């Protein structure tokens, strides 16, 4: 219901073990943060589009639309990081009166903005190719999450439409009693007047759920059977290792051409003999 971002499919990305996929994507997201140049995150952003279309059968247009949410924010971050850049400012690009814009500043601003776009794109690819129940199952079997916690989470998710219905009920009750007012202050007081009954109803139902779970022997025996068990395959590890390899290779290649900057770039350059 709330997970409309998951698209059913049978691509390679769909079939990878969710926890391993999460690990691989997190790895691919960490690398751009280690460098201060805009080329590195741009490469990883391109990589995400390639992954999505080739291995995930996700249309690039969908990813572009996903990035649109961040459009204004990225622009704001670009400006902010350019203006308040604290490193060596050498090359002046242009100036508006007393405000000077340096090339280093813009590069850094682009770097951070592109990182954000990477985050949102990889996340979108992950969410689009991961069935939430399989993710929960994978967290239990691969990440050793307590199965009680996973069960409680799934129970809570089943709960949400009920909460939604209750919200409409509360809203209607207020309307019938003539309690609706316009305005910003009214909206704030509405948050409190709807929120507390909603939360307390939710908790009351949670308590009821807990009692019925206990009555059915929840959490008593550690021997538990499962309907679907997620397993890891050889291809999962191939994917993980490839992600690691790419994470190392791209910075090294960029270092070879002197394209990256930041502390690690120096390390990479020395490794590659620049």
């Amino acid at each position, binding site marked *: 219901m709330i997970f409309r971002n998951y698209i059913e499919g049978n691509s390679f990305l769909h079939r990878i073990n969710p926890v391993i996929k999460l690990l691989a994507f997190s790895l691919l997201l960490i690398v751009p943060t280690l460098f201060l140049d805009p080329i590195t995150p741009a490469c990883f952003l391109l990589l995400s589009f390639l992954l999505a279309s080739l291995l995930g059968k996700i249309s690039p247009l969908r990813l572009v639309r996903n990035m649109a949410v961040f459009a204004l924010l990225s622009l704001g971050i670009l400006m902010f990081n350019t203006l308040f850049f604290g490193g060596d400012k050498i090359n002046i690009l242009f100036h508006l009166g007393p405000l000077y814009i340096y090339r280093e500043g813009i590069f850094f601003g682009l770097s951070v903005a592109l990182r954000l776009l990477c985050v949102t794109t990889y996340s979108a690819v992950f969410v689009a190719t991961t069935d939430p129940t399989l993710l929960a199952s994978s967290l239990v079997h691969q990440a050793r999450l307590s199965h009680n916690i996973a069960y409680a989470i799934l129970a*809570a998710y089943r709960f949400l439409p009920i909460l939604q219905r209750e919200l409409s009920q509360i809203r209607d009750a207020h309307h019938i009693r003539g309690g609706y007012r316009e305005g910003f202050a009214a909206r704030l007081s509405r948050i409190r007047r709807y929120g507390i009954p909603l939360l307390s109803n939710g908790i009351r139902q949670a308590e009821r759920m807990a009692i019925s779970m206990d009555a059915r022997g929840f959490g008593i025996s550690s021997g538990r059977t499962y309907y679907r068990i997620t397993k890891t395959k050889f291809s999962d590890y191939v994917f993980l290792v490839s992600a690691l390899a790419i994470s190392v290779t791209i910075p090294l290649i960029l270092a070879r051409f002197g394209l990256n900057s930041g502390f690690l770039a120096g390390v990479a350059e020395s490794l590659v003999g620049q």
Partner: protein
Amino acid sequence: MKQEKEKKGWARWKTVDLIVTAVLSVAFGLIFLAYGLLYIALVPVFGQVGIMLFLGFYYIIGVLVPYIVRRPGAALLASLLAAFTELLAGSPFGIAAVCAGLVQGAGAEAVFAIGRWRNYRWYMLILAAVASGIFAFGYEYFLFSYGALSEGVQLGLFFVRMPSAALLGGLLAKGIADALARTGVLRSVAIGKARK
């Protein structure tokens, strides 16, 4: 035997604790999703530093849930669950939100751990929210390379979120939990028992 069990009785999670944690975390995960969109819309108005005034609300889940259920690990679990909910429900911050949740939860958990998970007075709630803020700053420092920004800006990014954390993360959590406790609905969890 019974004495041993009772000694650690306060630490054992009951089913009702777990379900209340799950329900609150999932609900707030969705609230955070909506809040995130508001956040994105307000950045052009307040700027990167000014928007930190709104950041404290994210720390509320790591304070509210422990204050209610009072079990070890509540802050970390609730924070992570809320973040995962955000991710799966389509937050643009996605995986970064999960990492942020992990870090913020760890900060709050550390504070409650120092209080041996038994001290939930108002100043502990504020400290937990502030700790979430400190840990979150550390994480953002890495993610956004704050080190490359000018020092004044770095200080601003660190300090401006603290009053927000104390108010929207700490005191608001206490306000919500106390209001809920007054309705009597929290009688079967730790906070209800503590108020008797």
